[in-house]
């Protein structure tokens, strides 16, 4: 029995403190929004393959803050080379959580590479990530929540094995300039 994605993401973001979150397009963006909107969320509606790398740029810009990129298996598969770049860059404050349903859920539930057996945690490990893992039950998700707030030796990637289903969409604003400026204002940065 795999995880319910909304329950798992909400549990991961409970008492999130100063965590800065980037969400990948499609269901992960809806999951993060459904867990509670925050000025410290940057939701993606496009730019497939970018979530973890936006996380890297942000983590390198703000080494004093923990950064979490929450994305889907399809989105991370498109950015597979980015795992090599992140492994080499070795940020200590970046975690990637892949909400893995083994399918391209937004486009008709076609089976993805992870659904065909590809192991993203193993890929991240091969790319030099400091910690990787797979969570398939809520006890593991609760443990992972604590891990996200603890210091790391390098980048971390965790896979949440979730049911292949599309819960009702929870839609954040689509205005990218608004989302960018809201995020920067949250960090006390000037907005233009």
């Amino acid at each position, binding site marked *: 029995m795999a995880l319910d994605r909304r329950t798992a993401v909400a549990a991961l973001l409970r008492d999130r403190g100063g965590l800065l979150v980037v969400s990948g397009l499609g269901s992960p963006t809806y999951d993060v929004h459904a867990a509670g909107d925050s000025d410290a969320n940057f939701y993606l509606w496009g730019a497939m393959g970018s979530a973890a790398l936006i996380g890297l740029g942000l983590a390198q810009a*703000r080494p004093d803050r923990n950064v979490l990129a929450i994305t889907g298996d399809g989105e991370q598969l498109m950015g597979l080379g980015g795992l090599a770049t992140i492994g080499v860059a070795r940020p200590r404050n970046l975690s990637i959580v892949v909400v893995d349903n083994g399918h391209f859920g937004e486009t008709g539930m076609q089976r993805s590479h992870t659904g065909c057996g590809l192991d993203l945690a193993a890929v991240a490990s091969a790319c030099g990530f400091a910690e990787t893992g797979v969570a398939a039950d809520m006890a593991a998700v609760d443990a992972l929540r604590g891990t996200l707030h603890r210091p790391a030796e390098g980048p971390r990637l965790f896979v949440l094995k979730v049911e292949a289903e599309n819960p009702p969409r929870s839609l954040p604003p689509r205005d990218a300039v608004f989302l*960018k400026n809201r995020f920067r204002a949250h960090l006390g940065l000037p907005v233009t």
Partner: protein
Amino acid sequence: MPAAADAKTDLAQPWASDVHRVLKSAGVTHMSYVPDAGHASLIDLFAADPDVVSNVLTSEQEGIAIAAGAWLGGKRSVLLLQSSGVGNCINMLSLMTIARFPLLMLVTMRGEWAEFNPWQVPMGRATEPALDAIGVRTFRTDTAEDLVEVAGSAAALAYEADQQIALLISQRMLGKKIW
């Protein structure tokens, strides 16, 4: 790598230290790159700069996303690539134009001047129209003096006016690759 790359061009890159200085004074603290012989000196200067965070990429589009993340965190990131890599960036550039993220790309041109490798020609031809089509403004430089001046102006336009800018460094200026 950079030393070997230098050996493959018949021109040194004396402009690199000026461009490095101009970008630093524009507040650039982050740099990412896919190597190009034409950028070898500039990559070396940034990589040796203790105040700059450098990232080597597997594909140029990664640097677009990194620049967006850096800006979210209050930092200015520049991307160094060659014209073939522009083709790898197109959809990722939608992130920069729709969110009005500042972007400065320094693109060394291939396939347009004394080119030996025909495989470089199609993307060389497509570079400027492709950038134009996705909404990135281009400036072309043919001399080192021009490059240094345009780099400063392009950095201001990017980081102060939230524009997406590609500075195209002509192959004529960079010199012929030796085969």
